[in-house]
């Protein structure tokens, strides 16, 4: 048992945390979230320069050979800054899928360009009526000549607007919700027949409804086994879930500290409100919730490389804890800040909104509780 970071990991943590502290204050983040792209391409270039875009990829593929712990370090710090750059869709979701299951040609084409900051990507896995079931797919891919023709509607695809390539899940066989017959395709963001409706999300990010209308791709666009990609998708979503658990821990830390400070400084009835026992106990519960969330995010991070059954159960357990803790810490931070917590100007509301959406992302608390119980 060892809870220590390696010296490389310590350096990584110092550099990401320093960037958040020095260059990603709340006003900067607000401006970025309101800009056309919703993030900064200069920051993205900086992430590449500092090696953060390649940290999780193997050295053979052009990365720096890190693992889930390195991703956790980056995501936790990004959670503290509410970073809007599309790290999760590009590096964790799409990049992770390609690095684990791409052909040599796909890896050689994609991974170095992600690492260099030249290619952003998105993962279009959800559909309008599928809720959190990854196999509930109406999008179809029909074999045609040497390639495929894809048609369907993918819902709430984060990072699609800036993505040079989008990984799309579609049915090459089987009925809706069958485990078999699911395939993955790497589709160009500007492919003929692909259209997007881009929009802002409540937590300051950008997502799109992506419609595919007879989009033609070659056989080389298939990622992983034809008809057998569901386990790959589940695995990718588990990696994504672990990453957002770490992000949530970072966000909770900021809320915890801000509320703690507010209780010590806000005066009512002639004393700091933190002197009232009822508020002390609420603060204590926020603290406990944060510690539990951190523990569970770490647990899932350390098990996500295990065999699928172990991985899935650990991830669901962590997501349930993060959902509950995030909700408690988010809501109590607003409540304990009183009217100030309701303002758009103070950072508290933005962290609360991100935690609210993280609870939904990759399956909400109910979904993961059921999944854990059924395993």
């Amino acid at each position, binding site marked *: 048992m060892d809870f220590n970071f390696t010296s490389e990991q310590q350096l990584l943590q110092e550099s990401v945390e320093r960037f958040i502290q020095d260059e990603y204050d709340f006003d900067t983040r607000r401006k970025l979230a309101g800009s056309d792209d919703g993030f900064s391409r200069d920051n993205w270039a900086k992430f590449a320069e500092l090696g953060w875009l390649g940290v999780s990829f193997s050295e053979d593929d052009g990365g720096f050979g890190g693992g889930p712990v390195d991703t956790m370090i980056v995501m936790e710090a990004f959670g503290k800054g509410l970073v809007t750059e599309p790290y999760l869709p590009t590096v964790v979701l799409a990049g992770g899928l390609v690095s684990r299951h791409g052909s040599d040609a796909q890896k050689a084409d994609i991974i170095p360009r992600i690492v260099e900051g030249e290619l952003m990507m998105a993962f279009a896995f959800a559909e309008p009526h599928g809720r959190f079931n990854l196999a509930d797919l109406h999008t179809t891919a029909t074999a045609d000549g040497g390639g495929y023709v894809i048609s369907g509607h993918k819902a709430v695809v984060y990072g699609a607007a800036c993505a040079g390539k989008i990984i799309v899940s579609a049915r090459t066989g089987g009925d809706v919700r069958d485990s078999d017959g699911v395939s993955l395709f790497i589709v160009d963001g500007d492919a003929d027949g692909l259209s997007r409706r881009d929009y802002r999300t*409540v937590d300051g990010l950008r*997502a799109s409804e992506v419609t595919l209308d007879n989009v033609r791709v070659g056989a080389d666009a298939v990622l992983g086994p034809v008809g057998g990609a569901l386990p790959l998708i589940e695995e990718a979503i588990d990696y994504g879930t672990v990453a957002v658990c770490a992000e949530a821990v970072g966000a909770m830390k900021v809320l915890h500290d801000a509320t703690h400070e507010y209780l010590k400084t806000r005066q009512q*009835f002639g004393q700091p409100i933190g002197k009232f026992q009822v508020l002390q106990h609420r603060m204590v519960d926020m603290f406990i919730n944060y510690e539990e969330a951190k523990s569970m995010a770490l647990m899932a991070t350390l098990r996500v490389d295990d065999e699928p059954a172990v991985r899935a159960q650990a991830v669901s357990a962590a997501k349930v804890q993060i959902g509950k803790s995030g909700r408690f810490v988010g809501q109590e931070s607003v409540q304990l800040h009183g009217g100030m917590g309701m303002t*758009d100007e103070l950072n508290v509301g933005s962290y609360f*909104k991100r935690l609210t959406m993280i609870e939904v992302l990759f399956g909400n608390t109910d979904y993961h509780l059921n999944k854990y119980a059924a395993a």
Partner: protein
Amino acid sequence: MDLTFTEDEQAFRETVRRFLADELPQDLARKTEGGWHLEKEDVARWNRILHAKGWSAPAWPEEYGGTGWSPVQRYIFNEECADAWAPILSPFGLSMVGPVIYTFGSDEQKAKYLPPILSGETFWCQGYSEPGSGSDLASLKTRAVRDGGDYVVNGHKIWTTQAHWADMMFCLVRTDTEGKPQQGISFLLIDMTSPGIQVKPIITIDGSHSVNEVFFDDVRVPVENLIGQEGMGWTYAKFLLGHERTLIAGVSVSKKRIAQLKRIAGAERQNGASLLEDTSFRNRVAEAEISLQALEMTSLRSLASENAGKGPGPESSILKIRGSELQQTISGLLVEAVGYYAGPYELERFEDGWNEEPIGPDYAQGSMAMHLYGRASTIYGGSNEIQRNVIAKMILGL
């Protein structure tokens, strides 16, 4: 004991229902249902329609333009209004300062202020909270100093809902700095067009503009705008806070929202079936509905004692606590029901004339807006922490 309504009460319900079917503009009902923040003119329009019928202030005494309805009739009226998705009228004139004016005001004040409140011609706002005085309201510092026939007001109010709509503010000001903090407070009516008043918007986490900061810089307020006696403002403020507390529970609106939640969850798919068939989700909807029943019965008991001539007591804090918690539970379930479509959020969606296709189901974004703004309900009107203190002290004697 009997839970059924009398024949007369049922006939009354029919009358209200027919009126709403005939007179409630459907565009206003759709906005209310969708969880949008209404524009001033939306609220004013509905106020005018109710006023033309004589129903804009059901609780006021008849001599001032009220209806003379019993509390049970008022309850039925509220229930029917909620059921038809009628907009909520601005409470600051009709439910708050109006009763203060007809109870403590002079004849001149009654004649001047009450009729345009009834008609919706003048909008009011409430100048209570200050940056340093939230839960500890009695510590307020906004000063009013007598100078000839005027008070000169200097200070800073915050969280002032609808100040940007308001023609008038009822304001707690400090006229005396000696003695207990509660003793030096007076209740002033301030014309919002007076020189020296500046209203600054506060945007809330849902992206809307409902609340404001209001700054007073040597604002002259005629002495005749003082309600009652100087230094008695705290008494009037407490009277106002205890008024119409049975309505603060929001039972009728929550009942309607639960029906909406069931409709939405019935339409949402999970594994090809309705979300309402999911046991854990359905159980939580059932729990919310049971809390609502407990709240409704508690409000009805409080109503019955009001009917018997007893004024609302500190029990109203129960209604405020549970009512606000329940609203938050319901909006949380509404957001949860829509899954990933809780995310898309474009403020233009709420503007008049927006007619693009909604992203995802049309109810999704309004649910999120309600969920976010609704976090304030456990903070405003005396935070739930303060309400619990009231129960601990006033009811339990702790």
